[in-house]
């Protein structure tokens, strides 16, 4: 890993682009670490960490950049997607604190849950796999109305055990829908390891049974994700639904209410950093001299200053007005 490389970047990806994504990833990590710390301070009630999943999410967005009509049904570990599509860190902190101005639900739901239609995201609930059949319906509607959009349905290995996961993939295969199922497989459903969730070694092995194409990759490798998702988007656009399995590590416990030392060996936890997508990308940048150490330091200090400002703004923001409690049960 420390040996100097001379990497050939995929076509369309410049050095500047790599640095841009790296700074995004660094910012996502900074936000993630901050909300975790604020949970320990009693300020953020709950946080589901994205650490370890960032390359899978940002690499997907990188591939989707030239397809702005792409639509995302995310799940609760997808902070990098929500940030990557353009939500700013203050809006994110408002959401974590349940403050007025939370763009997803104005403090009605867990952080970053609800919808952000301006940025093509729906994430209604905490029932895993419930969003998968909805994503299929969304893709069906695109196909019926001849919209060119690809719908992406994100889920974890845990959700792959749900009946709705089966029903969603089955229907997508029958109707050849423009959809990509993206399994961010971190090999744990809270505490239950993969071998107690399924008898197979990869979720993507199920794809042929549904008539889906399958791709299985290292989701901690940004460029691998980018290239695979380009292929997946092309397939989905030509009405071949795809299941992409992104193998990642969940660096932190399930949520801020969890303690993963109760079910993961310390030796296993110690090794997680080796598959940390942020460190891997940083190493790639350093090995190829894409940026100087000073530039990297500047990025870090920009991120720290941004999160400090966002935290102050969000902490000073008002709570949602109690007069709104009964609002918007229905729309007009």
């Amino acid at each position, binding site marked *: 890993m420390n040996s100097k490389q001379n990497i050939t970047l995929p076509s369309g990806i410049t050095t500047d682009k790599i640095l841009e994504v790296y700074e995004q990833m660094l910012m996502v990590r900074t936000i993630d670490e901050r909300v975790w710390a604020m949970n320990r301070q009693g300020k953020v009630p709950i946080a589901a960490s994205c650490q370890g999943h960032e390359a899978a999410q940002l690499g997907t967005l990188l591939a989707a950049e030239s397809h702005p009509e792409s*639509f995302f*049904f995310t799940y609760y570990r997808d902070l990098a997607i929500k940030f990557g599509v353009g939500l700013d860190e203050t809006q994110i902190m408002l959401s974590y604190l349940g403050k007025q101005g939370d763009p*997803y*639900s*104005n403090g*009605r*739901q867990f952080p970053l*849950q*609800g*919808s952000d*239609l301006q940025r093509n995201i*729906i994430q*209604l*609930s905490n*029932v895993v796999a*419930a969003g*998968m*059949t*909805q*994503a*299929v*319906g*969304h*893709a*069906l*509607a*695109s*196909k*019926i*109305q001849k*919209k060119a959009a690809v719908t992406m349905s994100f889920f974890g290995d845990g959700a792959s055990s749900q*009946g*709705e996961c089966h*029903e*969603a993939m*089955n*229907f997508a295969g*029958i109707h050849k829908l423009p959809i990509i199922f993206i399994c961010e497989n971190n090999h744990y459903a809270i505490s239950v390891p993969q071998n107690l969730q399924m008898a197979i070694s990869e979720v993507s092995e199920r794809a042929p049974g549904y008539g889906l194409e399958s791709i299985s990759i290292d989701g901690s490798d940004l460029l691998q994700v980018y290239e695979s998702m380009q292929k997946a988007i092309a397939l989905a656009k030509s009405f071949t639904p795809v299941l992409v399995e992104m193998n990642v590590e969940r660096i932190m416990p399930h949520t801020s209410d969890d303690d993963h030392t109760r079910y993961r060996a310390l030796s296993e936890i110690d090794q997680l950093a080796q598959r940390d997508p942020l460190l891997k990308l940083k190493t790639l940048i350093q090995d190829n001299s894409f940026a100087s150490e000073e530039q990297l330091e500047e990025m870090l200090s920009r991120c720290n200053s941004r999160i400090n400002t966002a935290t102050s703004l969000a902490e000073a923001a008002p709570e949602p007005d109690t007069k709104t409690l009964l*609002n*918007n*049960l*229905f*729309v*007009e």
Partner: protein
Amino acid sequence: MAELSVIESIRNTLWEEMKKDPTVIVMGEDIGQRGGVFLATQGFLEEFGESRVIDTPLAEASIMGIALGASFNGLRPIPEVQFSDFIWPGLNQIIGEASKTAYGSNGELNAPMVIRIPYGGGIRGGLYHSQNVESYFFHTPGLKICAPSTPYDAKGLLKSAISDNNPVIFLEHKKTYRLVRGEVPEEDYSIPIGVADIKKSGKDVTVVSYGLMLHYCLEASRLLEDHNIDVEIIDLMSLRPLDTSTILESIKKTGKLVVVHEDNLTGGVGAEIAATVSDLGFDYLDGPIKRICGPDIPTMPFAKSLEEAYLPNTTSIFNGILELSQY
């Protein structure tokens, strides 16, 4: 004006709305080639094509979830569950997701879908083709619920349901499908959701009901005329929003209230009406609120004798009203 059955009226209305609005689609088990087990969509596949008339796999969770997702993307889906008894796998998407869509996104996202549910018994359907499922939805904020009893009302309410921008549960009593006939104007009209209808006005006792039972209430009221008891019959038509003001106005006049439904007694629509009236209409009452409902067993059994014993009927409704009127 044509005289139609309930199912004919529903079919015609679905047809009209699909003709009018290309965003309306229907989906469910056997609704395409087969035309639906009750023939609600007979001929639709030929007319509207397979992209708008979707024969789904036998999988209720995804029928509801896919319809919900399609409603987020420009369509007005009408998913059908074949029998109410099969709705349970779809409840996650209806109660867990659709009902919370607007609230959970602070009004940014909405779910314009109509979930058609043939329900109820008296047709020898046994435990799994007879169920009354309305209370589960009735308890859920964020859903609207229609339960028409006549072909005329079915058309008017279905039109409102399809144009509504929120999820609507549309309950169709199976036994009324062919049993109940009535005149249905050909012109376009709609009936607002959440407004009850006084099917017969009277001054002595208020009877509130919906669906099949409404017709038994009307029969009982005709028999009670011989006993000089003048019954007012309110057809709820919509269970949610519940039209409490029509009920309260009526008991102001009669002072007595009977609620009749086929659904189980405990925690049913009648319980909520009784609680609301005791809260807001206590001063109008001069007798206890009586509920004539299905007993607290899963639903009506298959055997003829047991099925009949479960169901309220004209005689038990007659007796209940008579008893209360003498209080």
